């Protein structure tokens, strides 16, 4: 178990390091002359040089990388070009906002997805199984801004049940915040429902087909007990890792949703930084997203190992 843990954590570190190299390359090497990219093609050459010197982007690439990553590791994410202020506080506020949105979406989709998967598996091959599978599959692939627009039209404009802006008044309490987050979270729910339901269904089908389930049924246990005590426990293991893995895709979707609903989260921050060519902000935002994903999938694997005795005791995978 300890060996597995260490190996898995080590691999995550390697992934993070590679990620930082890619993000650095994307935001600081590819654009070439950063000062020129920010000031535009008509700016004075001296102004460009002065800006490059001020930002430190006239130093050798490796020096810049070492400087950036060592500061980043201790929490100093540099100064935003656009706001002329440290990136950290902006990023923190944005992360808190996004976490709220993501939490609402997760609280809705996890029970729904698992329930959908279970219903589909218990009705294997019947029309309801087919409908759930096709609907889930279709909802997963429709871009968030398309479902978001339709939802805004129906619930925000025609029925006027829900506010169309995700930003709540400054003194809003808990329930008002949730109320404002409901509409933006539904497109995310639609995207994730299919994945979670598909995994839950596959896990259920496998568990229902297993020898221990047959034994439980043959020794005369009621169907309800068989499903709760024997099937569900084994069936939902893979679903846990899928749920954790989906965080990254959730954040990818946040870029679109937060733009559509004018919400100041990490996705909105990355989009604004990209539009303004605010490279330090962009780097910090993207690397944070990657780090969150890497941590989430590490946690998923560890949780999976903890819950699955075959891995816990160091047997075969």
């Amino acid at each position: 178990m300890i060996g597995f843990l260490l190996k898995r954590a080590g691999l995550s570190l390697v992934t993070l390091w590679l990620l930082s190299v890619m993000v650095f390359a994307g935001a600081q090497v590819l654009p070439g002359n950063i000062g020129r990219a920010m000031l535009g093609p008509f700016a004075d050459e001296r102004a460009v040089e002065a800006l490059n010197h001020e930002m430190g982007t006239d130093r050798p690439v490796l020096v810049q990388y070492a400087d950036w990553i060592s500061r980043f590791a201790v929490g100093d994410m540099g100064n935003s070009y656009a706001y002329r202020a440290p990136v950290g506080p902006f990023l923190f506020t944005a992360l808190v906002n996004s976490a709220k949105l993501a939490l609402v979406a997760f609280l809705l989709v996890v029970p729904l997805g698992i329930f959908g998967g279970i219903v589909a598996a218990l009705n294997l091959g019947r029309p309801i199984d087919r409908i759930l599978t096709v609907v889930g599959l279709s909802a997963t692939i429709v871009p968030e801004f398309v479902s978001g627009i339709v939802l805004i039209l129906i619930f925000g404009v025609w029925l006027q049940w829900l506010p169309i802006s995700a930003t709540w008044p400054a003194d809003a309490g808990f329930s008002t915040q949730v109320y404002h987050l409901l509409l933006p979270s539904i497109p995310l729910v639609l995207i994730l429902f299919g994945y979670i339901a598909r995994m839950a269904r596959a896990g259920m089908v496998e568990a229902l087909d297993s020898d221990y389930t047959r034994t439980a049924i043959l020794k005369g246990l009621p169907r309800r007990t068989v499903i709760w005590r024997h099937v569900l426990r084994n069936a939902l293991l893979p679903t846990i890792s899928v749920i954790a893995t989906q965080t990254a895709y959730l954040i990818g979707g946040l870029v679109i949703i937060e733009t559509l609903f004018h919400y100041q989260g990490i996705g909105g921050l990355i989009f604004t930084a990209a539009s303004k060519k605010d490279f330090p902000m962009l780097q910090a935002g993207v690397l944070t997203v990657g780090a969150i994903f890497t941590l989430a999938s590490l946690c998923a694997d560890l949780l999976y190992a903890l819950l699955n005795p075959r891995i816990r005791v160091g047997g075969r995978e």
Partner: protein
Amino acid sequence: MSVADPAAATPATSEKASGRWDHLRQALRSGTFLVGLVIVLFWVFCAIFGTEIVPYDPYADDLLNALMPPSREHWFGTDQLGRDVFSRVIVGARDILTIAPLATLISTILGAALGLAMGYFRGIIDESISRIVDALLALPTVIVALLALVALGPSSITVVCVIGFTFAPIIARTVRAGVLAERELEYVFAAQLRRENALHVMFVEILPNVLPPLLVEATVRLGYAIFAVASLSFIGFGIQPPSPDWGLSISANYGLIGAGYWWTVLFDGAAIATLVVAVNLAADGLQGALDE
């Protein structure tokens, strides 16, 4: 996936391969596949012949008739510049149906090559490519694309390359899994005993046997490529104006829906939704036929 169990595999590989192609022929008879195919073909037809069949010039402003609701003259109404929404939706299929398939093609070729190398050589090559793939997959496609598009400047070619490169690792994974099962089979040993070089074994002997799962994965990726291109266009980093592209039109008009001008966005949204769902249904039909 349709990875063959090495123990159950028969020596007569050619029979197994042809069996898989039979499955694909079967897919043509499955309902979901056909529905998906018909809708995709409809949009492909619009992309190719759209400009010939639409009633109005999709680029022509007509400010006197701006924001008209759907009527007999303008089936889908007009947008804020008075352009006919119906004509724009039909012609709007062109750019996305050029960029997304091109991106999928790049990722399929690149991914197949990578996956073959990883699965065939294993060891250090597999390990190091796997790590890079993991790092790439730790970022959502839209964010990777955003980073690259900011760095290189938005253009259609950049969009094609970025999506092609970010999807390649996912395809490589599928191919690698297939190759790992195939490389243990006797026809591969036979080829190695004949002292065929590695490239020949990979591309001539193994590749045809992993083509069916590769085809399914490529179809799935096509759906996601359309998803990604539409999303990028919506936030202004994909297809650029004045294209009548769907995502771009929604991004230009969604500020107006609070005022009730629903027809400026709803039809474009429906177009994107039908296209991605159709591609996905086709992929599901193919997958189902392979699993049987």
